[in-house]
């Protein structure tokens, strides 16, 4: 059989089409990931069906659960969108986490300045968001500078700056910004005036949701419809040729970091203003890292980040109930997410190899 396949690939065969069509190959990857986790769950002596049931009810079972999913989708999709810029430019911005943290810190700094004043809350909120953007951008810019002028690989630079951002955070929340009397790794809660307005009875802010949706559209347009996006892609694919074609490659790489930082900072600011309402350790929620997974799966198509981020968030929110209901670790969500990434990458690899070998690189 094997021999048959390599020798005379029937390009119309069902299996061949299944594996080389993007949509069906991705669906297959999802199925494999589900089968894989089911096996794992089964080995842990639990019932896979009830696990998935728990996850689904956990994510969509009630209005409350569902709004929480949407709420958490916002920062993840923003982080993933930011990473679209760096991925397009062929860069690994591991420093996303630190950039989100810095965004949160800067944004909370503004709150401290206006705390107790009678400035209009809309103005303060806008200032907070801008400051957050500034913080994230600054942190990303530094990684970019180190890469461009110091020759430091952005992965190491990013890791370093993540540590520094965490250290700054710890210093602030256990030091000067510690609330009176207690030291629990978080600051005083924001005055409700400065919260992003939420829908009655939920934690969901339509403002945050709106910002996320606008960003999805904006990033898609920038990357897919403008000279900037095309040049960024060119730089990511071949730096040398791009330079000889007349593209300021260093400038574009820096810009990729900056734009990624803008979105990271925005994410950080929204984490403070929209969800946590305090500044605390781990405020980034790991979205910088999960965003990398989403980004990898989205394969530099910004529009796709929206549904992928949604699936990821539904999984982790849904899995929160596993510990209580089934005595399983809620980290299972992480396992499913990881399995998804691995299987999608595998299937994509298989698809590309098959296409290259049997159909040639046609287009797209």
């Amino acid at each position, binding site marked *: 059989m094997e021999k048959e396949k*390599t020798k*005379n690939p029937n390009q119309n065969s069902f299996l061949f089409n299944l594996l080389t069509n993007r949509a069906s190959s991705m669906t297959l990857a999802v199925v494999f990931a589900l089968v894989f986790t089911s096996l794992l769950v089964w080995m842990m002596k639990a019932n896979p069906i009830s696990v998935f049931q728990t996850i689904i009810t956990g994510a969509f079972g009630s209005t409350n659960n569902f709004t929480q999913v949407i709420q958490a989708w916002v920062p993840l999709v923003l982080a993933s969108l930011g990473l679209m810029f760096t991925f397009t430019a062929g860069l690994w911005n591991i420093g996303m986490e630190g950039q989100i943290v810095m965004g949160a810190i800067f944004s909370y700094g503004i709150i401290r300045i206006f705390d107790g004043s009678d400035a209009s809350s809309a103005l303060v909120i806008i200032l907070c968001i801008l400051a957050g953007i500034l913080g994230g951008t600054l942190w990303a810019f530094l990684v970019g500078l180190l890469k461009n002028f110091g020759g430091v690989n952005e992965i190491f630079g990013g890791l370093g700056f993540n540590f520094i951002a965490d250290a700054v955070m710890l210093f602030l929340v256990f030091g000067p910004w510690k609330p009176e009397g207690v030291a629990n790794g978080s600051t005083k809660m924001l005055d409700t005036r400065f919260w992003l307005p939420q829908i009655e009875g939920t934690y969901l802010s339509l403002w945050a949701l709106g910002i996320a949706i606008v960003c999805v559209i904006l990033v898609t347009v920038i990357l897919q419809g403008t*000279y*900037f996006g*095309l040049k960024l*892609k060119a730089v990511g694919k071949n730096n040398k*040729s791009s330079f*000889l074609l007349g593209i300021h490659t260093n400038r574009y790489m820096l810009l990729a970091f900056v734009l990624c930082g803008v979105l990271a900072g925005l994410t950080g600011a929204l984490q403070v203003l929209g969800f946590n309402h305090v500044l605390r350790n781990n405020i980034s929620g790991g979205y910088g890292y999960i965003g990398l997974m989403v980004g990898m799966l989205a394969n530099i198509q910004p529009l796709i980040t929206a549904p992928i981020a949604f699936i990821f968030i539904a999984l982790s929110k849904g899995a929160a109930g596993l510990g209580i209901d089934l005595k399983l670790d809620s980290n299972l969500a992480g396992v499913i997410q990881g399995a998804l990434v691995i299987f999608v990458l595998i299937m994509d690899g298989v698809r590309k190899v098959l296409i290259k*070998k049997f159909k040639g690189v046609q287009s797209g």
Partner: protein
Amino acid sequence: MDVEVRNIHKTFGKVHANNDISLVVKSGEVQGILGENGAGKSTLMKILSGFISLDAGSILLDGKEVTIGSPADSVKFGIGMLHQDPLDFPPLNVLDNLILGSRERMIPNRKKVRQEFVELQKQFDFSISPDAFIDSLSVGERQQLEIIRLLWLGAEVLILDEPTTGISAAQKIQLFAMVRKLSEQGKAILFVSHKLEEVEALCTQVAVFRQGMNVGQMLPPFDNDKLVEMMFGKILTRSDRKCCTQEKVNIEVSDLKIDDPRLPIKNVNFCIQKGEVIGLAGMEGSGQGLLLRALAGIIRPSGGHIWLCEENSSKKDFVGKHYFDFKDSGISFLPADRLDEGLIAGLDLREHFILAEKQKGFFVDAKAAMQLTEKRIKDFNIKGTAENMVESLSGGNQQRAELALLRQPLRLLLLDHPTRGLDIESTLYIWSKLKQRCSEGASIFFVSSDLDEILQYSDRILVFFGGKVSKPLDAGDVSVDQLGQLIGGRGWE
């Protein structure tokens, strides 16, 4: 080993790249394969070496049918291929590269490998140090290394896909001697080329491919006109030498100095007239490439001047300026390594044309870009569509695409092997395009390892030897012999 392919078919989407190709190459034969760009030569070679799979047909080795599923399979069967575009080498030294490719033993016996390598080299008079790093080797040396590696892996069938396009005349002589020796040893050799004189010198039989089909075979003595007609379906006439040199100076180079650690260049002085074509001759790595890159603004000279002269006889020194300033004043550089420096694998033709044009506004006008692309594809006779990724084009068509990216108007065109890999018809066509640029006032500076091309198209010639640069010679006054002497280092005062 005898190789036979029977009724091979291969399609890429709508393109029928191999259409019922049959061919027999017996042990000891050197089979020439000719054909225009995109005729399907590389496709057949890649099928034989397992890089792509066939749709239908069969491959027989020594009369036995085999299935070649992967490059590793083909190595196992004793087929070795030297690719048209050199595959990426990891940044290792020669010995490690050899060992890495073998995968036979878990723990390599370095001493034995070294010995075998040295012995193989000695057979063919190559002199590559086993400890040299790959990046420090010239294209020609890498090619020698690759052939040695294939032989070391036990190749009985050797496929050479346009092996002479990037190497010097001396390396070509070495290569030919090697091929003859190997065929005496009973290896079967497939030799793909666009140069009739090479095929004539080397091959014991020739096949011509056209639009995916094997349209005819010929045994020596070869009738060149007939071969050309088989390749292109018509007889080609060389255009007459036409000189467009104007009296006006375009660029003046004085006392130029380039500090290259391996090859310092000093005291370069010459003028380029408007409309003039200057050819740079010399063994690969004698300094031509450096001068070309210095004139393009890619490497910075350590001294001297590059004057850009204007109509009103004012002039500006460009030494020390940025590459983009050179580019903006109409100086364009066309690198030899297409997919490494010229084009961007992963982008399609349309995206390339958008990038090469001046940016208008913030948003890309998709429709205008499409029109422009279609026009250029037609103008430059590129076989491919706007949505074709550049890496899917045949070698010659990639070269046409690169030329089609050049902007208008131009002051100076710096070309590194402009017709590398082009078939005869395209070469004529491209040079007619280039000459047209000259008549519009652009000057051309080009490097080529093909002496005939240099003599045919240049008005003046600069010869390079070990970093020394000759005075400009009038192309009409020098012969191939004289040029060969100078290139080899004789006749310099």
